[in-house]
């Protein structure tokens, strides 16, 4: 019976949490109609990680373990995913909508002649086919879409679906050697200084906007972020002003995020910024202008001077952490 195949992303041998979220969601969906869930793990020297995927719902794990797959390449990984698809004939291939997943999914879908439902935040099975909800116009609207009568590749937005470990051990099977050209080759990976948490993956984000007045004041944002284990976000205005790298930008021309907690400091809330973060579970705004549009989407807010409010809030959070 056609089931769901989940591509498992690993970096340096560690399975990404977002992939476990995708696998857990596949298990939840498959449970009703009783569909099989398989996983495909690609890389080099990663076989030991395969069996434990059973705890997240994989009945079978197909492993492509080759030296030439040690570093990610869209072409090599697409060949491995296709080999796995040919083996299990799924109705859908799930991947995490990470930088890698969003790169690989287009290659895989075109190679299979399927569509791709990208960056979905909700997924269901209706009449044996996958139907997904995905934010479009950066979250200003939600589209419900399907694979137009064919199987489909689905990338699932990180931090939206819970990863749930249970019981289970997967049957592990090695894929035969994957052929095909690898023309675009990763030569090296440059880690960002301080290896900051990326806003696209973070469960908590503390963002700064023009209200912080200067690049040096990101220190205040970083202090709160560090305390909360959060990533540092930014509005387009401060990225364009060169106060912080564009990797931090949240919004329609930056990253679209859905963390559990989003704290906006000194961000008025341009429509493009709101589009990028309004699906966050809890939104906190700190701004001196009571009319700022950010307060319209905020669950909690403080009207006040962020240079007084944020340090006071840091102290309060520190106290709460000390009590816990």
């Amino acid at each position, binding site marked *: 019976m056609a089931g769901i195949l989940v591509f498992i992303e690993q970096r340096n041998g560690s399975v990404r949490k977002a992939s476990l979220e995708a696998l857990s969601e596949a298990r939840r969906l498959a449970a009703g109609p009783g569909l099989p869930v398989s996983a495909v793990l690609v890389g080099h020297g990663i076989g030991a990680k395969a069996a434990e995927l059973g705890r997240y719902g994989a009945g079978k794990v197909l492993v492509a373990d080759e030296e030439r797959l040690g570093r990610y390449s869209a072409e090599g990984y697409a060949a491995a995913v296709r080999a796995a698809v040919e083996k299990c004939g799924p109705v859908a291939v799930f991947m995490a909508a990470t930088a890698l997943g969003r790169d690989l999914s287009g290659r895989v879908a075109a190679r299979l002649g399927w569509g791709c439902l990208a960056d979905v935040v909700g997924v269901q099975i209706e009449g044996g086919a996958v139907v997904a909800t995905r934010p479009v116009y950066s979250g200003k609207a939600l*589209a419900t*879409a399907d694979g*137009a*009568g*064919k199987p489909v590749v689905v990338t699932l937005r990180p931090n939206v679906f819970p990863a749930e470990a249970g019981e289970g051990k997967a049957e592990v099977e090695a894929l035969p050697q994957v052929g095909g050209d690898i023309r675009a080759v990763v030569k090296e990976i440059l880690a960002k200084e301080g290896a900051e*948490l990326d806003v696209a993956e973070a469960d908590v984000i503390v963002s700064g906007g023009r209200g912080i007045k200067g690049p040096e004041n990101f220190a205040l944002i970083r202090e709160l972020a560090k305390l909360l284990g959060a990533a540092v976000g930014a509005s387009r205005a401060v990225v364009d002003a060169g106060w912080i790298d564009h990797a931090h930008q949240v919004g329609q021309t930056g990253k679209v995020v859905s963390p559990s907690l989003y704290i906006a400091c000194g961000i008025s809330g341009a429509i493009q910024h709101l589009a990028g973060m309004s699906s966050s579970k809890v939104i906190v705004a700190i701004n001196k202008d009571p009319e700022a549009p950010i307060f319209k989407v905020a669950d*909690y807010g403080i009207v006040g001077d962020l240079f007084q409010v944020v340090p006071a809030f840091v102290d309060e959070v520190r106290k709460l952490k000390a009590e816990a």
Partner: protein
Amino acid sequence: MKSCVLMAHVPDTASVIKVSGPGDRIDEADIKWIVSPYDEYALEEAIRLKEARGGAVTVLTYGPERAQQGLRECLARGADAAVHVKGIERTFADALAIARVLAAAIRKVGPFDIFFAGIKGVGSDNSLVGAMVAEFLDIPHVAGVVKLEIGDGKLTAHREIEGGTEVVEAPVPCVVTAHKGLNEPRYPSLKGIMASKKVTIQALSVADLGLDEAALAGAEAGCRWKALALPPAKSGGTILKGEEDPAAAARELARLLREQAKAI
């Protein structure tokens, strides 16, 4: 080098989105249309390449009549030629159909040495077309590029990933999708605007490319939108006054986040 820029014509990012009658697409009535912001980086990189190494820049789009405005803007910024494949509405949100059409158009009007596109078309937010076109043309791609060097027959691209960058080497022809940070796009110059008016945009239909419109939207389609809805509006946030006693407001906020929202 001959480069080809894949352009998407999209609603202005400042647009308020409304759902139209049938409930499966946007209401286009008050929409201003723009060149997708990431495609501006793609075009700029192609123009810089032409300025440094010679060659020509062709901009290619698949879309309705209005997409011609986007092509004109690209010509005004410095592109040399433009190709417009006119399409059918039903396929505009389907990256697979778009990629099939663009790949077929490239086969017809090419060859090119390198292809540029934005990392995503703002709006449909798919981030798929670049890789799909590369797959259909059987060439490599590098997505989300923030730095690019082009050497003899190959390129080195820095591609943004979570927490860092990958340095990727690929032979050309190759599809490169541009991310913010790759360059600072120029504005159209007056001279460019005047010159662009003299350029004839090459118009093609899907049938000219040997593709079947009905199949593109039917048996060969990759996805279809069944419904479009606006997200539920938020209301009734707890907004505290912190002008006079910021410490008290901060204490109350921390308490609410811990006890009510259970968020910290």
